[in-house]
Each structure stands twice: as structure tokens, then as C-alpha cells.
């Protein structure tokens, strides 16, 4: 009987101690507001810096002359695992009168894209890269299908 009672009260004591330990920890966080790690997203938009390797969406950089580096070789289209990229080519006649394949439309399905980076790796001319944008919310998913080459853009000189 004595041992039973002893056990009984030791159990209670240990239980209460273990519970108080937990309460001490949560109580500590309750009273120490400097531990709060929340980043307030829409308010911190100006200061939000994402790592430069973050893969947000595929973009095609254009320089000030509205020129890009995409030759329309379709390497990215082949590398893409799930058909995110479609390249529509056209034939341009260049100065020497030769017909040359050039890009007409670089279709990019952002709604399909999984940001796996395989197209960027595959691109021989570094014409596309990953941008750090992430605010892709839309009301209609057709808006997520994008044309990456800007209107009337041209292939930069010296890129084959």
C-alpha cells in the first residue's frame, strides 16, 4: 500500500513537472516577442530579395535594341519533360538572300512549368533564363500561357 501510494504521488509529481516544463517553454515564447520570425509579405515587397538562383519562371532577356539570343533551335523544347515550351519557327530571308530559320513565337506554358531548369541547361546560346518573379496569380489560366519573344524582336548579331 505504501509503495503504491509512493508510486502514485511520484507519478503525479513527475507528470506535473513535465507539463510545467512545456508551459515554461511556450510561456517564454509568449513573453519574448523578439523571437517572432514572421516576414510580412505584401508589406516587405520592396525589400524582399530572393536568391539569384531561385527559379520563378522562364524569361527571355531582350536588350535595348529589342534583340534576343534565341535561334529557334528547339533544344529547350526537346529537353523539357512535359511540353512546357513550344517553338514556332518561320523562315526569314537575310541580307544575302538566303532563307534562314528564325523564331516566330516562343510559347511558354507557365501553368505547366515545373521550374526544373532543364531547358536553361540545354540552351546553347543562353537565350532564356530563370527569373525570380513569383507573383503569378491570375483569374483565368489562359493568361499563364505566354509568348516570350517580344513583338518585332530580332536575333542578336553573331549568334548561331
Amino acid at each position, binding site marked *: 500500500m505504501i509503495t503504491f501510494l509512493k508510486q502514485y504521488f511520484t507519478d*503525479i509529481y513527475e507528470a506535473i513537472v513535465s*507539463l510545467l516544463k*512545456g*508551459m515554461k*517553454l*511556450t*510561456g517564454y*515564447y*509568449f513573453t519574448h*516577442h523578439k*523571437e*517572432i*520570425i*514572421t516576414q*510580412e509579405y505584401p508589406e516587405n515587397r520592396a525589400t524582399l530579395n530572393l536568391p539569384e538562383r531561385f527559379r520563378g519562371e522562364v524569361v527571355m532577356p531582350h536588350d535595348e535594341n529589342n534583340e534576343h539570343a534565341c535561334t529557334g533551335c528547339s533544344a529547350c523544347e526537346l529537353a523539357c519533360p512535359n511540353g512546357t515550351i513550344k517553338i514556332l519557327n518561320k523562315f526569314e530571308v537575310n541580307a544575302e538572300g538566303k532563307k534562314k530559320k528564325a523564331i516566330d513565337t516562343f510559347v511558354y506554358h507557365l501553368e505547366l512549368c515545373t521550374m526544373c531548369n532543364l531547358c536553361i541547361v540545354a540552351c546553347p546560346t543562353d537565350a532564356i533564363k530563370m527569373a525570380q518573379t513569383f507573383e503569378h496569380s491570375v483569374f483565368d489560366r489562359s493568361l499563364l500561357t505566354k509568348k516570350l519573344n517580344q513583338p518585332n524582336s530580332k536575333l542578336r548579331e553573331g549568334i548561331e
Partner: protein
Amino acid sequence: MISLENISASIHQLLSANLSQTAVILIEMSIIALLAITLFALLGLILVFMERKVSAWIQIRLGPNRVGPKGIFQTTADTIKLALKEGFVPDGADKFLYKLAPFVVMIIAMMLLAPIAFAKNFAMWDLNIGVFFITAISSVSVIGILMAGWASNNQYSLLGAMRSGAQIISYEISAGMAILTIIVLTGSLQISEIVNSQSNGWWLFKGHIPAVIAFVIYIIAVTAETNRAPFDMAEAESELTGGFHTEYSGMRFALFFLAEYINIFIVCAVGATLFLGGWMPFHIGAWEGFNHIMDFIPSSVWFLGKTFFLIFVIMWFRWTFPRLRIDQLLNLEWKYLLPISLFNLLFMTLIAIKGWHF
């Protein structure tokens, strides 16, 4: 000095001077009804907001802060949203009971407000068996929960209702025992008298160890009785999805939600009254100056302060502990709380009779 007591007395005088007795009673009743509804809504808003902020700070985050300054209109938005959400009755449900259940829970919660002394000499109805009234009426709320769970015709609801039935009934006992230990000391069931008996010190301090034990048991038991984590068997989100109110939506769900928080307020108010001296200010023996300063703080502030402290403790429990299993919960009751509270009561009786308390 302006106090709730003076205001109510002057209103009464003003009315009785000009009107007949029936009219006075009618007007006073409608004032009470209005006050009760306002208090009810206000308490709900404040407590829900408090819960969200407490949880946020414990969980190292900010909590609601975008709706209104510092987020104080967050719960208002929630209430309006819930009120304007479609409330519908499942096809398979027992329509009458399903609709009745939130009313039962609400009526119980509202009636429990009656005997509570919010300030010095200020209670809606200071009846002479106040504590007994609270014990008796609060057990009825389990019927509302059982009704809701059964009428929903949903197996999760049914399980939740069964659990909460067993849980509330059993924890009622130890809560009652804890209350009894104080009744033995005061020799009265009237709330005003219980508070008055603590004018020279709170029972928590005057009643030696048994009072402290009773206080701890009371807090544990009422946490269970109000279905709060770690005893939230009836809802048990990760087990029973929503427990007894799985099928409730819109305003009816809001009523359950509100009643839950009002119940917390009530049990904490009773705890504060019994153990922490209700609206009595905090006094330390012979420190006259200190005691005088304490007297300056209005009695309602004292009462609300103590109550909200207890509410905070219960919230603290919730955000710290994992949930018990249903059989462990009942084990805790009949293996630990019930025997201890029984012996504690006997011990306290001995102390009271011998006059060993302060």
C-alpha cells in the same frame, strides 16, 4: 466614485420615481436583456481575438494584424462572415433537434451569466444558491452537445457527442468537489457572500494546501468541461474532423463557437470568484498604503483581470499540450482527480471545523 453598483442603483431610482412597478420591471428586464446580449457578443469577439493573438505569440508569429488597426476587427469580420454564410440542414438529419441544439447551448450559456458578480454588488441575479445554480445548469449543456451530435446523423458527430457526454459528466464531479471545498469554508452558496468572505484574503491563500489542490483540480476539470485542449475530445480535429459540430455551418456553427467561449468565461469567472476573491482587490496583510492603492482600482477591473488571467492559463494549456486519449482522459478523472478531490474535501472539512484556516 462611479461604479456599476451606483449606476444600476440610480437607474433603478430614476425609473421607480416616475413609473409604475410593472413598467419598471419590464424596462429593467429589457435593459438586462440588452446588456446580456451586448456582453455576450463582446465577450465572444474579445475572447476569440485573444485566443488568436495568444496562440500567435506562443507560436512565434504575428497573428491577425491586417483588418483594422492591429487586427482588432478580425473577429468582427469573422462574425459577419459566419452570419452571412449559408446555414443549411443535412438531408438525413433530425431537423428539429438539429435546429434546437444551438439554442439549448446558447440558453445555457446565457443563463449561467445571471449569478456572476461582475463588480461590487453588481450581478444580474444574486440568488442565494448561486454556486449550486451554476453547477446544476452547466451540466445541461451536455444535452445540447449530445443533441447536436446525434441529430447530425454523422458518425463523426456521434462519436464526438458520445465522448463529450462521458467527459463532461465525469469532470463535472471533480469540478463540483473542488467547489464544495470552498463552500465548506464559506458556509454559503451565495456568490456575494462567498466574495465577501474573502475580504481579508483570497481563499486560495487562506485555505492552505487543500485550497491550492482544489484550485488546480478545478482548473483541470473546467478545461475538460469546456472541451478545451488538451481535453478537446468532442472536437478532436485530427481524429474526428469536427466532432459534434461537423455538420454545422454558418450562424449555427457560430453559436456553438460563441457558446464555447462564453462557457470558458463563465467557468473562469466562477474560479476567480471562489478562489481569487471575485471583485475583491488584492490586499497584503498590514501594508495599509499598498492596500489603499489597490482599492482605487475599480472592482470590475479586478474581477475581469482575474477572470482573464484564468482564461489565459486555459489558453496556455491549449497551445502547449498534446491531446489526451479518451480512455486516458477518463482514467485521469477516476484514478487521480476524483479520489484526490474526495480526500481533499475531507481534509478541508477538518480544517474548516477546527478553524485552522486564516
